[in-house]
């Protein structure tokens, strides 16, 4: 347990340090959100209608971009081999790494959401709804994305291949995340239904992600 705690603390510290690059995800999130009004036009009514979708898409892309770092740096300096060989079950170590990655790269996105909501003319409830759905949904993005990150690191390929592999898996999260936010803002569906499916997706990926990632690391690294 202490080993896992140490792993989480180490990963967060490395991610937040100079050269860690966790906070660059937030910057990317901000830039994508700022780009949107230029693409669809500065119509505030339209922006507030599209707002949840824009924020979700931005968060999805931002968390996808930072995923590359989940295993690559550790693979390059050799610590990934140590983690694979260590006595801690690899599945738990993968889960710990993903948790650390979510705290360092996913939480800042949610904290930034209220500010970006202002730019998109979202009112209080809407911002709160988007932030709540992101809080429930981004763990699913990180934990399913981890599978792609593990595959990419064993194949020595990242970038576009990772995106192509991970994005189809994240479509359900996007669907229910945006559906829950829209339900909270304009109805007619109750907020609870899509939100609980979103939570279920997160919980399921919490189980499946570490096992699949550990399997691909174990079979792939030799």
């Amino acid at each position, binding site marked *: 347990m202490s080993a896992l705690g140490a792993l989480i603390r180490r990963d967060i510290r490395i991610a937040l340090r100079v050269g860690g690059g966790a906070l660059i995800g937030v910057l990317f999130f901000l830039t994508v959100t700022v780009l949107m009004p230029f693409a669809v036009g500065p119509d505030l009514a339209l922006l507030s209608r599209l707002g949840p979708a824009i924020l979700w898409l931005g968060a999805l892309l931002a968390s996808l971009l930072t995923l590359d770092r989940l295993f690559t740096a550790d693979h390059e300096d050799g610590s990934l081999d140590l983690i694979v060989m260590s006595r801690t079950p690899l599945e738990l170590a993968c889960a710990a790494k993903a948790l650390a990655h979510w705290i360092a790269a996913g939480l800042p996105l949610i904290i930034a959401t209220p500010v970006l909501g202002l730019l998109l003319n979202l009112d209080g409830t809407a911002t709160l709804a988007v932030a709540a759905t992101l809080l429930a949904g981004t763990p699913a993005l990180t934990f*399913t994305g981890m*599978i792609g990150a593990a595959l990419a690191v*064993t*194949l020595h*390929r990242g970038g576009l291949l990772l995106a192509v592999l991970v994005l*189809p*898996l994240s479509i359900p999260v996007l669907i229910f995340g945006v559906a829950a936010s829209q339900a909270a803002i304009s109805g007619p569906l109750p907020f609870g239904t899509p939100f609980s499916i979103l939570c279920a997706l997160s919980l399921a990926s919490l189980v499946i992600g570490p096992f699949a990632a550990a399997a691909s690391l174990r*079979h*792939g690294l030799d």
Partner: protein
Amino acid sequence: MKLTETLTDLANPTRFLALTARILPWLAGVTAILLAIGLYQSAMAPDDYQQGATVKIMFIHVPNAWLSMFVWSVMSVAALGTLVWRHPLADVAAKAAAPIGAAFTFLALVTGSLWGRPMWGTYWEWDARLTSVLILFLMYLGLIALWRAVEDPSRAARAAAVLTLVGAINIPIIKFSVDWWNTLHQPASVMRMGGSTLDKAFLWPLLVMAIAFSLLFVTLHLAAMRNEILRRRVRSLQMMQASRVTFASEAGAGSRDGSAPKGAA
């Protein structure tokens, strides 16, 4: 027990090649005959009282849609074969199935949207069944991209196996999407509790077409597996020859240095 013995026997690629060389012509023949019967029956089937002649698209659409899911299931079993039993032909089977499955999925999507235009008034609708099949198609393409991104086949096989098993979650979602969500796509009418709701005039051509398309898949799959095995042999022969040429030219360079003065003289 018998099955495992047969599977172990087939682990020898040469034996597999010999066996498939004998089976394939027969399979191809039966497939062609069944396809001909099925197409004839489909053409002769009566028009539906609501859908008119467009109902005949279903005889192509439904088998393709079934196979799009069936092929992913075959690949999932093959993925287990790669990861758990390390069966040497499992990754060949998985790799050969991916493009065929993608083709069936693409045909299911295209025929479905061609049918949807006159019936639903739109080529595409973002409902649960259509979206989940589209995701399946994207995953097939991602899998093919993964196979093509890595040179070493065994390394690519293990990565693809993990991705295939993760993607298998989508299969039950596609199957039950019409029951879980209130969709535009109609619910299951052939394989359902309490018997088929289809009239016999439509059921028979559909079943014949389904069997014909399944046999088509088996034929194409075995042929593609043969090609893949032969392609790997060619690759290893080429690599052997390349290394021999390098070795020979290195050795030759040494001897040419010695013989050059003689040649000049």
